[in-house]
């Protein structure tokens, strides 16, 4: 346990250094929040594989590296052109760029938004309009028992703040691009996003994580989504970071009456990735859709944890996660659905399908249903399989080469999750990216 303390101590001393940088204009409630969160982190420490929620994912590479909080400086030398590869052709959107966790206005661009809609840097809103932020910030993403959320909350500084007042429809998505430049001492950033969509409104938000110069670093992101009554919120999380990146994130959504929240989580990059997607259906008739795709090659480790909390009656949830695992990669899916006593007439469905493309690749899948109401409809299913040899032979018997047939089948397996993304340029861009990233099924046998 000594080592744990050393690891935790590193962040405590980082916090002391970080404290000096914090703006003096920061509201006092935020200071209290930070201290509480830091205390919780010091108590909780980094999770280990003895912890049930982290059984299949060792965070030793994160805990063992003395990551430094990335300094807030202007992103010298980074230009819009450097970001082209991470953006999507033809996508009309408000773009907010964050470099090493800090908002970079010179790389961002706005588009006309409906009256009263705010979309910008959380740091700025904390300074200018803290009253808009305070009622929601850290009210949903619990840090009491989540070490990484506690760490993020202690160090929270910047990220996106989006506020859509009642009855407004955003016709274009808001695109949040998080760029990390990993050269030099390995940096850590703690992006913190808060998305509040009030009654009857509609918004699509894209969180896009990429690496610019490679190298090792750690991203520890937390996003809170508050979906008001009858609102419609689509959230896309694209994880396309470099091969040395560690990435831990929590997407915490709180769903109001008859609201509809959809999450699309596409995980392609990073060395060690853990995504928690949690939804609380906290009013009657809420609808939650969680779609996910993880595609791991080489030694990538990707862990998707989801938790759907049906707290009120007549809620609906649909969850569909797919994994493609090649090389010596490791995938984890842990999907929990809780139906509380009060949540009668809940209709919940969960599916997790995995495709293993090599002998060394592995996946741990664990669906969990916990039902306390007696009039509900809940189903879940998980499969782990290899490429369908019959389908492969069928394609080859029509003249399609073996390697092409294999990649065609893998792509067909993975692409239906991407197809569900409602933003056309992103869908098209990701489909192309899938083709270049997709490994061939098992060892190719030399036929073109």
């Amino acid at each position: 346990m000594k080592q744990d303390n050393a690891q935790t101590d590193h962040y405590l001393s980082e916090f002391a250094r970080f404290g000096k940088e914090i703006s003096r204009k920061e509201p006092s409630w935020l200071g209290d929040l930070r201290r509480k969160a830091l205390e919780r982190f010091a108590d909780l420490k980094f999770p280990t594989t003895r912890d049930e929620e982290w059984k299949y994912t060792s965070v030793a590479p994160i805990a063992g590296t003395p990551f430094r909080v990335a300094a807030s400086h202007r992103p010298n030398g980074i230009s819009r052109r450097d970001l082209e590869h991470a953006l999507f052709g033809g996508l009309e959107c408000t773009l907010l760029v964050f470099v090493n966790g800090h908002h970079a206005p010179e790389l961002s661009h706005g588009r006309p938004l409906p009256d009263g809609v705010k979309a910008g840097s959380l740091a700025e809103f904390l300074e200018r309009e803290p009253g808009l932020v305070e009622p929601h910030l850290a009210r949903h993403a619990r840090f009491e028992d989540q070490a990484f959320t506690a760490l993020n909350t202690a160090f929270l500084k910047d990220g996106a703040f989006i506020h859509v007042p009642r009855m407004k429809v955003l016709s274009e998505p808001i695109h949040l691009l998080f760029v990390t430049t990993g050269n030099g001492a390995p940096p850590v950033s703690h992006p913190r996003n808060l998305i509040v969509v009030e009654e009857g409104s509609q918004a699509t938000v894209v969180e896009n994580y990429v690496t610019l110069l490679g190298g090792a670093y750690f991203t520890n992101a937390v996003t809170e989504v508050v979906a008001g009554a009858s609102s419609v919120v689509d959230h896309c999380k694209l994880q396309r970071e470099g091969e040395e990146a560690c990435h831990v994130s929590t997407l915490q959504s709180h769903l109001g009456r008859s609201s509809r929240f959809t999450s699309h989580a596409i995980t392609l990059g990073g060395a060690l990735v853990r995504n928690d997607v949690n939804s609380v259906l906290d009013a009657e008739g809420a609808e939650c859709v969680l779609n996910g795709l993880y595609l791991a090659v080489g030694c990538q480790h990707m862990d998707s944890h989801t938790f759907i909390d049906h707290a009120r009656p007549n809620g609906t949830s649909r969850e569909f996660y797919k994994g493609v695992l090649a090389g010596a990669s490791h995938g984890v899916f842990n999907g929990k659905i809780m139906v509380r006593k009060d949540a009668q007439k809940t209709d919940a469905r969960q599916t997790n399908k995995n495709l293993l493309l090599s002998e060394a690749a592995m996946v741990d899948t664990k669906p969990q249903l916990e039902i306390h109401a007696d009039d509900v409809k809940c189903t879940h299913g998980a499969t782990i399989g290899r490429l369908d040899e019959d389908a492969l032979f069928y394609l080859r018997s029509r003249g399609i080469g073996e390697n092409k047939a294999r990649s065609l089948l893998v792509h067909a397996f993975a692409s239906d999750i991407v197809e569900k993304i409602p933003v056309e340029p992103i869908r098209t861009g990701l489909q192309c990216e899938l083709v270049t990233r997709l490994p061939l099924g098992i060892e190719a046998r030399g036929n073109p």
Partner: protein
Amino acid sequence: MLEIKNLRAKVGDREILKGINLKVKAGEVHAIMGPNGSGKSTLAQVLAGRESYEITGGEVTYDGKDLLAMSPEDRARAGIFLAFQYPVEIPGVSTTYLLRAGLNAARKQRGEEELDAMDFLTLVKEKMKLVEMDEGLMNRSVNESFSGGEKKRNEIFQMAVLEPRLAILDETDSGLDIDALKIVAGGVNKLRGPDRSMIVVTHYQRLLNYIVPDKVHVLFEGRIVKSGGKDLALELEDKGYSWIEEKVAGA
């Protein structure tokens, strides 16, 4: 065009083909009949290149080439087509995509120019009429949630588009009602020609009322035990396969 000499194949420890001899000339239609388990489907799959069967002996020449040395895709590009007994469902891959990729792979092999989307569409529309295929099925995933009849029709439709030189129809009649059978057989007949050979594998004589073969072979326990003209099929229909079984046992 095709010559099979003493072909033997096994799956696991079980020998299924125990020395097949067969010669198919250009333009001929051969029917292969036999009771269930006699090796008919195995023969069809082995000819198409299915790797789960182990070839333990014999040889197969196709247009003078060693067919057994070729990969399934090379066989397809060289003009061999298998209409599957159980067409496979392939979610996420449309029939249009499958056929265009397959057709262009073959054209490339022959040194011909690849068809662009427009030319391909024209070709496809023309061929769809042959088997009365619904255009909507083309853009759906291959065979996914097709009815049994639609799947079989889709096989013949693919054959029409790919224009093989040797088509192997593996129990294309099974599970079809009489109307669907007539449509499928009609499609097959329109594709008959002096340069195209066919091997029609079937359990029942009924299909051969519509696709009249030049030769009929009876496969039994992995060997061709009797060959004849189209009348042999009628004889089998009358007497059943037990007649052959007794003959083989008595010999």
